[in-house]
C-alpha cells in the first residue's frame, strides 16, 4: 500500500475514533484511568557477524494468550504493541538465516520488554537463546521497567496467598513492599490514606465516589475480595504520567484472560468453627487462532466470623483497632459486638477478547464483574438489642439517651422519649426491640468495552469506555441510621496512543474523562439533639470562628431530658404533654407552639441527607520512554489532572462543606534507569501527583423536604416569643418558617462552621525514590528502595469532643470538619526478595520500614486545635516496620508446603502527655488533663482546688504509667501471624487436596487502647487500677482485661482450619 494511502487511512480511522470518543463522552454520564491493559515487546535484529541491521525479519510472539506478528523495518527494529500480559516465546525467521527463538519473555501491563536478536546467515539449526531479560514476571529484578513498581503474578500470588482462590485482597497486597496494613486493617501505600491511593482492575477505576460503609477509611469497590485476578502491579510514589489521581500510589490488578488450550479450575472449600464454605470456578478458553478468547471466574464465599478465642462472648471483647467511622456516632460501631457476624459473597468475572483485522491488528475487549456481598452485623446478636431511640426498660428511654446511669427516668424524660423522638422505619414505639439485626449489602458491578487498533506497525490506539456501579445498603437500627442507596457510579471514556519512534523513543499520550455521581442517601433518627440542645450551643462554631464549644459548656449527655429555653423541644408538645413538663420544670415560655398549627402529636422529624456534588475528572498526558542504550533508559512525562465539582447553585443554601469547584495540576514525572551490568539495575524516580478529593468530601446536604410539614408554620423562638433569628449560613438571619429553623438547626448541628471555612481542594504529593535491584546467579533477586514523600495541603478531618457516652466511656465527637491544613512527610525503605522455583524452595519476602509524620494523633480524632497548631505526630495507625514472608516447598511427589508469615513491629499507641487545645481562643499544646479531655481518657488529673490554667494546669495525679510527650509515643508489642498451607496433588492427576491453617499461633491479642474504665488517679490516692468500670453495662462490659491504664483485648480472629479440594484440567 502506498505510503500516502496508508496515512490517509490512518487519519480517517483516527478521526473516526476521536469522534466516537467525543460522542461517548457526550452521551455518557461518565469515564477512568489511562491504561491500555497491555505491554510492549520491542528490539532490534542484526546480522550476527557484521552487526548490520536486518530488515524484513518475521518476529512472532506466542503464548496461550495469543500470537503477535510483526516484521523488522529497514533499521532492523521491531515493535509489538498491545501485547496481552503473559510469558511469550519469541521467534525470529528470515529467509536464508537460521531461525532464532527465545522463551520467557514476560509482558506486564504498561511495560516495555526489549529483546535484541542476532541472526546468522545460512545457519540450518534453530538457535535457542536465553533472554538477557529472562526474569520471572514477579522477580524483584526487572531491568526493563522504567518506573519503580512491584509485580506479583500467577504462582507468586498462590504463594503469598497460601493457595489459589484465596479472595483476601489485603493478604495479597500486604506481601508487596510499600504496602502496610494499618491498625484498622486498611491497606496503606507508603503511609498514605486509602483515599489517596488509586485502585484499578483491568483498567477500571475500582474506587467509589463515597467511602465504603464497611470501612469508612477507604473507598474500594470490590469489598477487598479477589476474583479473576491474574497479576497485581503496585506502583508506589510518583509512578509515571500515564496514570492520574494516584496520590501515594496505584494498585493495578489485571484480570486473567482466555488461553489456548481451554482449561477449567474448580475449588471446593470448607472450614469449621467458624463455619466457612467456598466454591470457586474458572473457565478459560481461546480458539486455536487466538482470535477469540474468554475467561470466566466465579467465587462464592459463605463465611462466619469468630473474634477472640473460640467460645468467647462478644460483649467482653472490646473494640477492634481504631476507626474514624465511629465519629459522631452514639455508639462505636467498631465494637466487636457490632462487628460483622458473617459474609456471603457471589462474584462473577468475565473477560472476552476478540482480535480481528489483518494480522489481528485490532481487538475488542468486553470485561465485566458483578459482585454481591451481604453481611449480617451484630456479632453479639440482636435478640436483646433495642433501637437507639429507646427501649430496654419497658416504656422508658434507654439510659444511653436520657439521664444518668441508674437514675430513674422522670415523667418528662419518658414523655420526651416516647412522644418526640423519631421512630426508625418499622419501629412501632421507642421502646421496641430491634426486629432484625444490622446488616450491610454491597453490590459492585462494572463493565468495560475496550477497542485497540495497531494503526500501523509503530502505533497503537486504544479506546476505552467503562462504568462502575457501587450500591450499598446499610441498616443500623441500633444506631438509628440507615443508608440506602449509598455508593455511586463512575463512567469513563479514555483514549490512549502509543507510538514507537525509531528504536529509542516510545511516545505515549492520552486523554481521559470520568464522571462520578455519588449516592449517599442517609437517614438519621438520632440527630434530634439539634432540637433539644441550646441553639446558642449549636450555632457556637458559626459565631466563634469555627471553634466548637469548650468542654464544660456542653452537655456531657445529649438528651431530651430537660428543657432549655430556645430549644424547639417544647414546641412539639401537646397541651397535655406540656402539663407533664410543667410539673418538672418551671417553664415560663410558651409550650406547645406547634399544636395550634398542627393539631395532634408531632415527633421530631428525622434527618435525611443527600450527596452534595457530582464530579468531573479529567486527565491528559504525554510521555516519552527513551532507550538511550543498553544501560540507560528514562521516562519523561507530563500529566494534567483536574476536576470540576458540579454543585447545585443556591446562594441561600450553599453546601454544608465548601469545596473548590475547579482544580488542576500539571504533574511532571521523571524516571531514570541505569543497568551497570546484566545483574544490577539502579533506578531513580520523581513524580508529582494529585489526590483528587472524593465528591463525598463535600458532605451531604440536609434535605429540606424532611421538614416540609412545618413549612406553613411561622418561625418561633420560645425563649423570646419572637421568630427565630439563627438561620442562614452565618446563623444571623430571620428564619422564614418553622421548617426553615428546623433545617438550619439540623444543618448547623451537622456541619458547624464548615461552610464558612476555606474551600477544600485536592492534596498534592511530591515523591522521590531510588532503587537498586540485583539478580543472583540462581535467579533469586533483591530490590532495595529508599523513598521520600511529602504531602501538601492534605485534607484532614477534624472533630471536637462534645460529650461522652456514659455506657462506653468513649468521647462523643462533634461533627466532622475538613481542612487542607494537613501535612504528611514519609521516609522509608522497602525491601523485596524473590525466588521462584517450579520444584524446590520458592520465596518472596517483602519488608517496609516507614517513618511518617502527619497531623493525626492515635487513639482519638484530630482536633481542630491540633491542626491549627500544626502539630505533627507519628502516624497513628502505621506500624513502622512490616515484614511479609511467603515461601513454599514444592516436591516432585506432589506436596506443597507454604507458610506465610506476616510480622509487624507493633503499632503506635498512647494518649501522650500533651494535647492541642484552644485556650482562650488560641491553639496551644498543653498537658492533657481532665480539664481539656474526657475524664476517662485523660492521662493526668488536675488538683480540683488549684487547677491552674488551661496553658499551665496543676497536675496532681496521673494514671500511673509514663506517657510519652505526644500521642502515639508508645509502640505495641510486635505481632506475627503465621498461616500454613499444605497441599498434595498426585503427579499427573487433576485433583488436589489441601489444608490451610490460619493464625497458627492462635495469637488474638490486639493493640492496646486507652482503658476508659480506668479513670483512676493512681499517683495519689488510688494505688492500683482496680476501679470498677463505671460505664459498664451489659453488652458493653469488658471485664477481665481492664486492670491497666490501657486495655488489650483478645479479639483477633483465632486459629482456623480450612480444607479444600481442587480440580484442574
Amino acid at each position, binding site marked *: 500500500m502506498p505510503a500516502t494511502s496508508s496515512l490517509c487511512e490512518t487519519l480517517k480511522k483516527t478521526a473516526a475514533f476521536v469522534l466516537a470518543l467525543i460522542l461517548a463522552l457526550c452521551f455518557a454520564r461518565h469515564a477512568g484511568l489511562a491504561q491500555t491493559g497491555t505491554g510492549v515487546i520491542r528490539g532490534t535484529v542484526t546480522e550476527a557477524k557484521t552487526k548490520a541491521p536486518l530488515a524484513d525479519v518475521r518476529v512472532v510472539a506466542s503464548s496461550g494468550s495469543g500470537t503477535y506478528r510483526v516484521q523488522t523495518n529497514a533499521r532492523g527494529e521491531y515493535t509489538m504493541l498491545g501485547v496481552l500480559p503473559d510469558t511469550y516465546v519469541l521467534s525470529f525467521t528470515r529467509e536464508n538465516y537460521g531461525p532464532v527463538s527465545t522463551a520467557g519473555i514476560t509482558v506486564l501491563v504498561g511495560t516495555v520488554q526489549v529483546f535484541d536478536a542476532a541472526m546468522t546467515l545460512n545457519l540450518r539449526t534453530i538457535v535457542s537463546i536465553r533472554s538477557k531479560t529472562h526474569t520471572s514476571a514477579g522477580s524483584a529484578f526487572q531491568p526493563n521497567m522504567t518506573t519503580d513498581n512491584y509485580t506479583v503474578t500467577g504462582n507468586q500470588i498462590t504463594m503469598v496467598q497460601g493457595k489459589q482462590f484465596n479472595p483476601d485482597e489485603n493478604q495479597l497486597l500486604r506481601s508487596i513492599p510499600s504496602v502496610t496494613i494499618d491498625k484498622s486493617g486498611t491497606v496503606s501505600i507508603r503511609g498514605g490514606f486509602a483515599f489517596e491511593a488509586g485502585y484499578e482492575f483491568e483498567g477500571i477505576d475500582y474506587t467509589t465516589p463515597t467511602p465504603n460503609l464497611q470501612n469508612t477509611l477507604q473507598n474500594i469497590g470490590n469489598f477487598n475480595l479477589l476474583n479473576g485476578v491474574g497479576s497485581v502491579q503496585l506502583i508506589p510514589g510518583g509512578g509515571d504520567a500515564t496514570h492520574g489521581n494516584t496520590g501515594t500510589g496505584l494498585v493495578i490488578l489485571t484480570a486473567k484472560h482466555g488461553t489456548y488450550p481451554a482449561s477449567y479450575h474448580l475449588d471446593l472449600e470448607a472450614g469449621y468453627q467458624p463455619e466457612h464454605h467456598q466454591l470457586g470456578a474458572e473457565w478459560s478458553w481461546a480458539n486455536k487462532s487466538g482470535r477469540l478468547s474468554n475467561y470466566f471466574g466465579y467465587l462464592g464465599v459463605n463465611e462466619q466470623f469468630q473474634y477472640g478465642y473460640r467460645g468467647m462472648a462478644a460483649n467482653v471483647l472490646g473494640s477492634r483497632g481504631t476507626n474514624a467511622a465511629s465519629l459522631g456516632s452514639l455508639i462505636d460501631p467498631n465494637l466487636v459486638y457490632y462487628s460483622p457476624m458473617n459474609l456471603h459473597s457471589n462474584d462473577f468475572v468475565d473477560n472476552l477478547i476478540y482480535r480481528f483485522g489483518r494480522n489481528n491488528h485490532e481487538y475488542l475487549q468486553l470485561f465485566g464483574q458483578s459482585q454481591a456481598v451481604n453481611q449480617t452485623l451484630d456479632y453479639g446478636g440482636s435478640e436483646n438489642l433495642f433501637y437507639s431511640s429507646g427501649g430496654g426498660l419497658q416504656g422508658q428511654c434507654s439510659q444511653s439517651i436520657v439521664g444518668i446511669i441508674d437514675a430513674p427516668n422522670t415523667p418528662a424524660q419518658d414523655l420526651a422519649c416516647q412522644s418526640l423522638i423519631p421512630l426508625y422505619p418499622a419501629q412501632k414505639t421507642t421502646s421496641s426491640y430491634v426486629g432484625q439485626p444490622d446488616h450491610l449489602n454491597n453490590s459492585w458491578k462494572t463493565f468495560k468495552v475496550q477497542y485497540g487498533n495497531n494503526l500501523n506497525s509503530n502505533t497503537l490506539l486504544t479506546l476505552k469506555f467503562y462504568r462502575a456501579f457501587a450500591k450499598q445498603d446499610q441498616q443500623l437500627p441500633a444506631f438509628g441510621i440507615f443508608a440506602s442507596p449509598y455508593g455511586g457510579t463512575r463512567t469513563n471514556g479514555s483514549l490512549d496512543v502509543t507510538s514507537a519512534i525509531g528504536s529509542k523513543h516510545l511516545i505515549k499520550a492520552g486523554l481521559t474523562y470520568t464522571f462520578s455521581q455519588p449516592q449517599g442517601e442517609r437517614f438519621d433518627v438520632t440527630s434530634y439533639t439539634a432540637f433539644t440542645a441550646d441553639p446558642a450551643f449549636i450555632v457556637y462554631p458559626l459565631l466563634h470562628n469555627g471553634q466548637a464549644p469548650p468542654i*464544660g459548656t456542653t452537655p456531657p449527655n445529649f438528651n431530651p431530658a430537660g428543657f432549655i429555653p430556645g430549644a424547639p423541644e417544647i414546641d412539639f408538645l401537646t397541651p397535655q404533654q406540656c402539663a407533664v413538663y410543667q410539673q418538672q420544670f418551671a417553664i415560663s415560655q410558651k409550650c406547645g407552639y406547634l399544636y395550634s398549627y398542627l393539631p395532634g402529636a408531632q415527633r421530631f422529624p428525622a434527618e435525611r441527607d443527600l450527596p452534595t456534588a457530582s464530579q468531573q475528572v479529567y486527565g491528559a498526558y504525554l510521555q516519552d520512554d527513551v532507550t538511550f542504550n543498553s544501560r540507560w533508559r528514562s521516562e519523561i512525562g507530563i500529566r494534567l489532572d483536574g476536576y470540576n465539582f458540579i454543585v447545585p447553585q443556591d446562594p441561600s443554601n450553599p453546601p454544608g462543606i465548601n469545596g473548590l469547584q475547579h482544580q488542576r495540576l500539571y504533574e511532571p514525572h521523571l524516571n531514570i534507569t541505569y543497568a551497570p551490568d546484566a545483574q544490577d539495575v539502579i533506578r531513580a524516580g520523581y513524580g508529582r501527583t494529585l489526590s483528587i478529593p472524593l465528591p463525598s468530601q463535600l458532605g451531604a446536604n440536609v434535605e429540606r423536604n424532611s421538614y416540609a410539614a412545618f413549612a406553613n408554620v411561622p418561625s418561633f423562638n420560645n425563649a423570646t416569643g419572637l421568630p427565630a433569628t439563627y438561620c442562614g449560613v452565618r446563623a444571623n438571619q430571620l428564619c422564614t418558617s418553622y421548617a426553615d429553623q428546623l433545617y438550619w438547626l439540623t444543618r448547623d448541628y451537622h456541619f458547624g462552621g464548615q461552610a464558612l471555612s476555606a474551600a477544600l481542594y485536592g492534596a498534592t504529593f511530591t515523591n522521590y525514590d531510588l532503587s537498586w535491584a540485583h539478580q543472583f546467579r540462581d535467579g533469586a533477586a533483591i530490590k532495595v528502595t529508599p523513598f521520600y514523600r511529602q504531602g501538601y495541603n492534605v485534607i484532614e478531618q477534624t472533630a471536637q469532643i462534645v460529650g461522652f457516652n456514659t455506657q462506653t466511656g468513649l468521647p462523643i465527637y462533634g461533627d466532622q470538619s475538613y481542612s487542607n491544613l494537613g501535612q504528611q512527610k514519609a521516609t522509608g525503605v522497602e525491601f523485596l526478595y524473590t525466588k521462584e522455583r517450579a520444584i524446590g524452595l520458592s520465596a518472596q519476602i517483602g519488608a517496609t520500614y516507614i517513618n511518617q509524620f502527619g497531623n493525626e494523633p492515635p487513639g482519638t480524632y484530630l482536633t481542630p486545635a491540633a491542626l491549627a497548631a500544626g502539630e505533627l505526630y507519628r502516624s497513628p495507625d502505621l506500624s513502622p516496620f512490616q515484614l511479609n514472608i511467603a515461601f513454599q516447598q514444592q516436591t516432585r511427589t506432589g506436596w506443597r508446603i507454604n507458610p506465610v508469615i506476616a510480622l509487624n513491629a507493633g503499632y503506635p499507641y498512647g494518649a501522650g502527655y500533651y494535647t492541642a487545645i484552644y485556650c482562650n481562643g488560641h491553639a496551644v499544646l498543653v498537658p492533657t488533663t481532665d480539664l481539656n479531655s474526657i475524664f476517662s481518657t485523660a492521662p493526668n488529673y488536675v488538683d480540683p*482546688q*488549684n487547677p491552674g490554667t488551661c496553658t499551665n494546669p496543676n497536675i496532681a495525679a496521673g*494514671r*500511673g504509667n509514663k506517657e510519652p510527650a505526644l500521642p502515639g509515643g508508645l509502640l505495641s508489642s510486635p505481632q506475627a501471624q503465621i498461616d500454613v498451607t499444605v497441599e498434595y496433588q498426585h503427579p499427573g492427576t487433576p485433583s488436589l487436596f489441601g489444608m490451610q491453617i490460619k493464625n497458627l499461633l492462635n495469637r488474638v491479642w490486639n493493640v492496646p487502647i486507652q482503658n476508659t474504665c480506668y479513670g483512676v488517679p493512681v*499517683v495519689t*490516692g488510688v*494505688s492500683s487500677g482496680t476501679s470498677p468500670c463505671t460505664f459498664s453495662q451489659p453488652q458493653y462490659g469488658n471485664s477481665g482485661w481492664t486492670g491497666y491504664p490501657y486495655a488489650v483485648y483478645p479479639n483477633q480472629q483465632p486459629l482456623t482450619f480450612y480444607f479444600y479440594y481442587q480440580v484442574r484440567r
Partner: protein
Amino acid sequence: MTSARYIVPAIAAIAIAGCGGSNAAYQPTVSAVSPVGSNKLQFAVGIATIASNGGGTITYGLNTVETLRQKNGLSGSLFNVPIITLPTTMTVPGNPLYIDNDAGTNRITQNTLNEPNIGLPTNGTGVPLANPTAGAFGYGFCECNSNSGPINGFAPLFIAYALPLIGQPGLQYFGGPPAFAPISPDLAAQNFSGYSIGFTDIAMPAALGSYRLDVAFPPSYGTSVNSDTPTLSATTQLVSTQPLAAFATPAFTADGNGGGTIGIAVPAGATEALVFVKVLTAAPSQDPCTAAHSTTQYFTVNVAPNSTTATLPDSLGQPMSDGKAARTICSGESYEVYAAAFDYPAFEASYPANLQQTPVISAASGQADVSTSDVAGGQYP
C-alpha cells in the same frame, strides 16, 4: 554474589521469635505512689462565730481546717475518705438536711461532709450531675473526690460548701480577684468559681479536747474503708472555747462603674479578714458586660484588721467579646456581700499562691478560729 539462601530461614526465625504474648506483656509499666508515704496531713480546729439574721443571731460552732498536700504543694489525693473523731464529750446533732448516720455519735464522716446544698453543676439540661463525694484536699475539705469523673466525664472542680455544715444552708466562700488570681474564662466555663478558703465550720458546739482526722485511701472507688485501708491521721487540740467577736454585716456602696466601697468592722482578735462579693448572673441580654457574666462570679478583697473599708475595683469581670475585662458588677446585676475574719493565716495558706507542703493553718495558740458575717445584698445601679 552467591544466592541469599539463608535469608528466608533467618528472617522466618526472627519473625516466629516475636510471636505470642499475653495481655500483661502488652501493657505499659504502671507505678503507684503511696499516698501515706508521700503526703503530709495537717489538721486544726477552732471556734466559729457565725452571724446571721443581719447580725442579730450569733451561733458558735466548730471550725476545722486541714491540709493534705504533696511535696509540690498540690492536693495529696484526689480520692479519699475523711473521718473526724471528736472528743468523746461531743455528739453530732441531727439535721433533716443530711444523711443522719453521724447523729448521736462523736464522728463526722462523709455522711455529713457530703453536703447536698453546694449547687452541683447540671448537665446543661437541668439534670444534676453525679455528685463527687467529700474528701480531704490540699486546703480544706470539699466535695471534690474524683469518683464523679468517670460518670460525668470531666473534672470535679472545687465547689465551696454552703457553710456552716449542719446549719441552715449558708454562704459559699470562694477566693476570687483581686485578692486571688483571676479565674480564666476556660475555668469559669467549667464551673470553677474560685479558690478554697480552707475552713469548714460546723454548726455544733465545740468542746475542749483532742480532735483527730483520719484520711483513708481506698484502693478503688468501690472499696469500703476498713482497718487495712492505708490511712493518714492528724490530731489537734482545742484548748480554748473563747471565740472571735461577731462580724457585723458589711455594707456595700456602689461607685456606678462596676465596683464600690465596702464598709466593714473586723472583729477584735482577728488577724486578717476577707470580704466576699458574689455577683449573680443576670438574664441573658445583648449587653456586652452581662454577656461576659455568663456564670456567677465571686470577688474577694483582703482586708487588714484595722481597716474599716475595702475597695472593690471596677473591672474584674470576665473578658468581653472585645477582649477587655467586663465591669466587676454589671448594671442591673444582683450582688451579695459577706465577710470572714480569722486569727490564723487563712489567706496566706491558700491556693494558688501557697504551695508549701505544710503551710501554717493555726494561730500561735494552736487553734484556728473564724468569725463570719451575715450577707447583705442589692442590685447594682
